[in-house]
């Protein structure tokens, strides 16, 4: 954008309460404007409110962090997140935007997409990863193979170092909106194989409970 445009836009954002200037500096930081809108969205979404107890109970049972995400452009957006009460997974929260190509939740979502949309996104990711593009696509296809075989995929270190996620793709509500759901933990090398199996089983169980619970809800998300 042109500099003049940027300055007119930032000025508008300041006056609307979305950003503010750092005292004595030329930088801006986010202000609370978006917080109110986000709260309104979250507190009136009947689907997310209905889903939360099931997600929280899964998080508590597994002592893990559980998230529900939708597509936001070429990224994934957390629309619901429940942490376990025992671990403070501070980096993860509602409103988080994370890459689709490198995370379990993103790959599960990608896998569930119609072929044409999936192909287009894969091309975009390959391009933007430049020299690592081929490797990335290879890794994504490995996750797809796993999803074909087991319904879930496992990715470690996709977003946070020393942690892993297990994810699946699901459609919820009266209009069958596409979501992905994941369950993440920090790495425990010894029991990983078993841990992963338990999580996948529990995740699938919660997914089918969610489908049943939300089948009649308007799921515009």
């Amino acid at each position, binding site marked *: 954008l042109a500099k003049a445009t940027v300055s007119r836009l930032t000025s508008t954002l300041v006056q609307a309460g979305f950003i503010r200037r750092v005292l004595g500096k030329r930088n801006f930081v986010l202000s609370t*404007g978006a917080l109110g809108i986000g709260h309104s969205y979250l507190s009136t979404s009947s689907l997310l409110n209905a889903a939360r107890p099931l997600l929280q109970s899964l998080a508590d049972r597994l002592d893990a962090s559980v998230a529900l995400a939708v597509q936001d452009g070429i990224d994934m957006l957390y629309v619901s997140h429940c942490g376990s009460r025992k671990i403070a997974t501070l980096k993860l929260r509602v409103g988080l935007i994370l890459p689709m190509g490198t995370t379990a939740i993103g790959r599960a979502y990608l896998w569930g997409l119609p072929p044409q949309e999936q192909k287009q996104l894969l091309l975009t990711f390959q391009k933007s990863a430049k020299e690592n593009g081929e490797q990335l696509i290879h890794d994504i296809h490995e996750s797809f193979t796993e999803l074909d075989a087991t319904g879930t995929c496992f990715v470690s270190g996709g977003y946070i170092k020393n942690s892993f996620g297990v994810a699946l793709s699901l459609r919820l509500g009266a209009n069958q909106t596409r979501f992905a759901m994941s369950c993440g933990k920090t790495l425990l090398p010894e029991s990983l194989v078993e841990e992963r199996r338990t999580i996948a089983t529990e995740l699938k169980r919660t997914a089918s409970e969610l489908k049943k619970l939300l089948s009649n809800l308007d799921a515009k998300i």
Partner: protein
Amino acid sequence: VTAGDEQRQDTNNKASAQKTLFIRPFVAPFARALDLLSAFGKDERCLGNLELSKRADLPSSTVTRLAHTLVSLGYLHYHDNIRKFSLASSVLSLGYGALDSPIIHQATKESMSSFTRNHNVHLILCSREKLDLIVIDSYKTPAFPETLQLEVGAQIDLSAPVAGWALMAGLPEYECSYLSKSLERKTPHSWSHADPKFNDALNQVRQTGFCTPPKDANLSIPMVAAPLHISGSVPLAIACLAPRSKMSKSRLENELGPALVSMTNQIVREVDLNESKK
């Protein structure tokens, strides 16, 4: 929205801005789109054109045009059957995630929950949105009914004693007086910039670090509040609430006020320490 449109709006706004002595560039259609998103509240999910036009104070033709643009951008849904709009998930990507800041929660969680336990009071952490305070964290006490305690997302008038006063008192002087004058413009019946009560509150914060309600405020749930400035975060205030029977003037001034201040100081020290470690 055409460029010509934008220019016209700009000129209009410049004219009105001059009246308030500020000349700032302003992209009106953009600001209106933000107003439209902000018009959605916490009670009703779906709003029709008429309701939106009332709440955002925009002509209904503008609402129609903007709302459809926002639908195509993924910020709103249109519900055909009821001809109403609702917020869509992309509004969370406008900064909600960054704002619902883990830094703030992490820095305040421990101290605030132990304060609530030790003093049997309800604590809230607030930040400002325009002329309202928004509760961004809430610590409840079993010591009094839950219905009297505030939830995250609750809004409080900035002008109501004393959480908003404490937050304003913690701001640089020009910002504080700008807000106070804006309050006067918006709610002339309930706020006067020259009100000695507010001035007393500012002085009290300067001297003691906290602020208590004026004598005649007669609040059913009195509170004492203190500003909190964590580096890298928006200006905040912490307020401590309890029923009147448990909040004598001397308890407010001698126990809770000073305890609140020592807690905010400690929070700031810990954040600075962690920053310098990094």
